[in-house]
């Protein structure tokens, strides 16, 4: 009976999707996006769209292999833009009515009067509701797999990792949608509250990333300031010693010697005063930087703690990216990009007439910070990204199950 009921609910979920125009509209849009990706190519001068060539410094076959290029397009355009934003919004709009319709008076009576436990009924309904996204992402990923294989000459089954990841990403939001839909029985309320929740996650994620970038920059600046302050202290102590030495008159000092000594003393005292002033300024600057760094660290810890208990939508999607980047050709692409960035940096240094070991300009420091933070975000532990997000989903679903099991309909 278990299989019969589950397969019936699965078939019902498919029929429900099939009846929704938005489902087919999204399929059509996915096909268009996949076709657009297939129309883009790469040659030694740049990238091509159908039979036109657009010159590009980095997007050409000298730097990037077609396979790496298509994977990059799949991740950046197909995954990060299409599947996790536009298609996800369409999926939410399309599926937000499923739970409110399911628990509506007259409809829920029919389901609850069947020989199926409430917990299993609700969970089966919830998981079959994820079919919209599963079908959409499966079709799109299959199309992209074929495009990368046929046009990029690389058959990379790793791209299919997008299916569980996008479904997981969507389920973080859908569990909230299901809970609100169950409590309010309103499609509009569940959709709006889920969108608001998603927006909060986005703001929190961007905020944490920005604060971490500022914190990292402050850390670098603090290290530089401390590095600069250390020799200054040495110079001050040496200057003090010299002043003390010059203040003591030798036993048999001639007037000329005394004149020279006093003149040196005056010079040395002026230098010491200058050094002490610089040291004071530097110390004050270090102190300010430390305060700023401590404040940012505190903020970052707070935001990180809040993020820990909430689902990590952005980081979940970077898991696929980091898996794709581990492939040799993607690594080569990154190396090429890094080499190109280094060349540009060197050119700017030469323009400024700076030495290679001199401190980098603020723009370069910012670029470095951005790249470091990006790498740091990509390398966050898997248990933190997936484990805590799934834990959040389990808690929300548990709450929904408790309400569903206890409610009188």
């Amino acid at each position, binding site marked *: 009976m278990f299989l019969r009921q589950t397969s019936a609910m699965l078939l019902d979920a498919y029929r429900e999707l099939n009846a929704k125009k938005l489902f087919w509209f999204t399929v059509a849009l996915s096909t268009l996006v996949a076709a657009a990706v297939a129309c883009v190519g790469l040659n030694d001068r740049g990238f091509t769209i159908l039979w036109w060539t657009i010159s590009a410094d980095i997007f050409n076959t000298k730097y990037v292999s077609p396979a790496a290029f298509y994977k990059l397009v799949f991740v950046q355009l197909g995954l990060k833009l299409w599947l996790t934003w536009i298609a996800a919004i369409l999926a939410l709009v399309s599926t937000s009515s499923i739970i409110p319709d399911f628990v509506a008076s007259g409809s829920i009576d029919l389901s609850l009067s069947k*020989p199926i436990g409430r917990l299993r009924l609700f969970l089966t309904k919830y998981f079959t509701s994820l079919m919209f996204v599963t079908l959409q992402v499966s079709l799109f990923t299959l199309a992209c797999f074929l495009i990368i294989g046929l046009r990029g000459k690389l058959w990379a089954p790793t791209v299919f990792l997008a299916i569980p990841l996008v479904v997981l990403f969507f389920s973080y939001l859908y569990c909230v949608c299901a809970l609100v839909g169950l409590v309010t029985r309103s499609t509009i309320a569940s959709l709006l509250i889920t969108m608001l929740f998603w927006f909060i996650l986005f703001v929190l994620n961007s905020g944490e990333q920005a604060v971490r970038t500022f914190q990292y920059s402050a850390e670098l600046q603090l290290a530089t300031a401390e590095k600069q302050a250390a020799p200054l202290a040495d110079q001050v102590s040496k200057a003090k010693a010299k002043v003390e030495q010059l203040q003591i008159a030798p036993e048999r000092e001639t007037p000329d010697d005394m004149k020279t000594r006093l003149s040196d003393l005056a010079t040395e005292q002026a230098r010491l005063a200058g050094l002490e002033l610089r040291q004071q300024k530097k110390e004050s600057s270090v102190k300010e930087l430390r305060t700023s760094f401590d404040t940012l660290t505190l903020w970052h810890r707070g935001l990180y703690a809040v993020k820990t208990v909430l689902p990590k939508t952005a980081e979940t999607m970077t898991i696929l990216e980091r898996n794709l980047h581990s492939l040799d050709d993607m690594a080569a692409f990154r190396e090429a990009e890094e080499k190109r960035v280094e060349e540009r940096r060197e050119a700017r240094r030469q323009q400024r007439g700076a030495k290679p070991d001199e401190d980098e300009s603020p723009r370069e420091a910012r670029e470095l910070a951005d790249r470091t933070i990006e790498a740091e975000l990509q390398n966050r532990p898997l248990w933190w990204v997936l484990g805590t997000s799934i834990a959040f989903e389990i808690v929300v679903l548990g709450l929904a199950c408790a309400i569903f099991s206890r409610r009188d309909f």
Partner: protein
Amino acid sequence: MTTATADLAIDLKGVDKTYTGGWFQRGVHALRGIDMHVGRGEVFGLLGPNGAGKSTLVKILMTVIRPSNATGLVLGKPVGHKPTLARVGYLPEHHRFPDYLTGRQVVEFSGAMSGVPARACRKRGAELLDFVGMGRWADTRVRSYSKGMRQRVGIAQALVNTPELVLLDEPTDGVDPVGRREIREMMLELKRRGTTVFLNSHLLSELEMVCDRVAILVQGRVASQGTIDQLTTHRKRYEVELESSDSHVDSKIREVFARWIPAQATEGTLPDGSAVSFRIEAPHQPVQVRVGSVEAASVQPVIDAARAAGLTIRSVRPIRPSLEDLFMEAVTDPLTGKTLGPGAKEGN
């Protein structure tokens, strides 16, 4: 009730339900210790005014609502036993089928959820749709059905698992007279096949035609329960209509019935102990005499006396109260004579 538990499809004892209110609302005591017995293979009707707790009771039986307290059995298993529901069919009031499904899909989905194998479900579904007159429209989406058509499909889905017990909440709601008749016949056919039918309806005349037993629920309590015969026996009577050309009919009637009805009164007792009463609407209008007995012999002294006094007997009719009379009696406050308002009582 002497019926053995094994012969009962539904055997409820002390079913209680209180809906808890919100923060500033009082709870509603919807059911107050319902004791009810429905025998296997009978058609049982549940009556009651709006808010009496009928739907709450049906929903408790179907596990849609959790009772505050209930000891009882449905098909020999405790109330709320989920696997038993595979042997029960249910048509809720104001049901809402997914409008993206066709009638056939609704029936087959219901069967699948009750654990009916796919092939049997298809076969039985097609038979039932023909049976309820929806064979032609089986592959049309529910969204284009009329209310009556939805109701017919609803009945078909309730029967797809060949249930031993079927609960129908307002099954003829929105159905045309022809359809109502067909549904009535269908219920009788179910009875012939040994299926127990638990019917919840406001259409008392229809219930009267098909039900073996009824229960009247008023403000969360069973006001009366039994076969229609049992409930009406003590209310059965004979009515004799007399006519007189005499303008002083009042005094003439008093004279005729003086031996049984005291002076100035309109009620008395016949020699066999049956109650007798008369009512005069207006002068020159027929007089109605009521004899509170189901025995024809009891009415003979009244006829003899009337004939001896030269009164014309227009008619002698045995009167059996209708279900509506029983219902009205149950929902009327005996102290005030006013009908009890709709809804359950608040609080305890």
